[in-house]
């Protein structure tokens, strides 16, 4: 395999798995999710590298306002 592709895959992998870790943790602690079911979101976040995570963030922007969630 071309070394350039290896770098691409590694970089995407790092970004994907760190993001997925944060978002799955958020998903597990969230009571309400868009679409009511958590399983499809787990699949989206894990299966679609990076862009699944962006999709999750677009539908759950409350993750960036933890202070409001506590109120």
């Amino acid at each position: 395999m071309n070394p350039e592709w290896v770098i691409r895959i590694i970089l995407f992998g790092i970004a994907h798995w760190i993001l997925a870790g944060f978002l799955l943790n958020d998903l597990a602690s969230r009571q309400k999710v868009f679409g009511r079911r958590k399983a499809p979101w787990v699949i989206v976040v894990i299966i679609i590298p990076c862009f699944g995570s962006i999709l999750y963030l677009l539908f759950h922007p409350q993750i960036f306002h933890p202070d409001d969630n506590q109120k």
Partner: protein
Amino acid sequence: MSKAAFKPFILPLLLLICALFYYFGELVDWATWNALRKNFFYGVHDIHRLLFLIPIIYAAYTARVKGAIIMTLVSLAIFLPRAFFVSPYPDPLLRMIIFTLGAGVIGYLVARIRNEGEKSRQLEVMITIERDKLRKIVGGMADGIIITGQDYRIRFMNSKMVDAFGEGTGLPCYKLLRDIDAPCQQECHIPDVIHDKHIRKWECSFPSGKTYEILAAPYVDSDETVCQISIFRDITKRKNN
């Protein structure tokens, strides 16, 4: 709809604007909007990337370190396709990684500063609550309390003491208690208490005709000065009987 309801959508909107701006040249090509074809959208994208600092800093401000990391990684995910497949300029990956690391550090620092600010605000509130509680306790005591410095100046009097002798904070204790111009010769225990760190108890009669039992102990004030804290108990009735 209230302003608060829009708040969660600020960040996705910012991100969308940044991403559109970042890939605007490609979007113009794809949609063949020739009127919008400007050289700026086809140059080196280092300046375009700076726009992503806004959502990263905003995320750090609202969601602290976690927000900064997530937004930095999301920005990285948006940068990667250009660095890998679009950019014709040299070292696109390296420039993108340097920017991402820098932006991540800035976001982290913003989050830390905000955390520290929040922590000091909470501490301030706690201190104020504790101080008020202590003031209520001291104010409600049946005995008088007076704190005197090494220079004989009164640093604090509780309300009981003010009722008995009048407000005298800042005045020398001998001036307020006895209306004289020099420290009391026989009955003053300040040197004993402050310098030798002894606890002293004695009885003292004042010109008003009242007799007090005084218990004095060393006390370190907030400015680290050793002072004397004295508790004045009115024993006039007991003495007269």
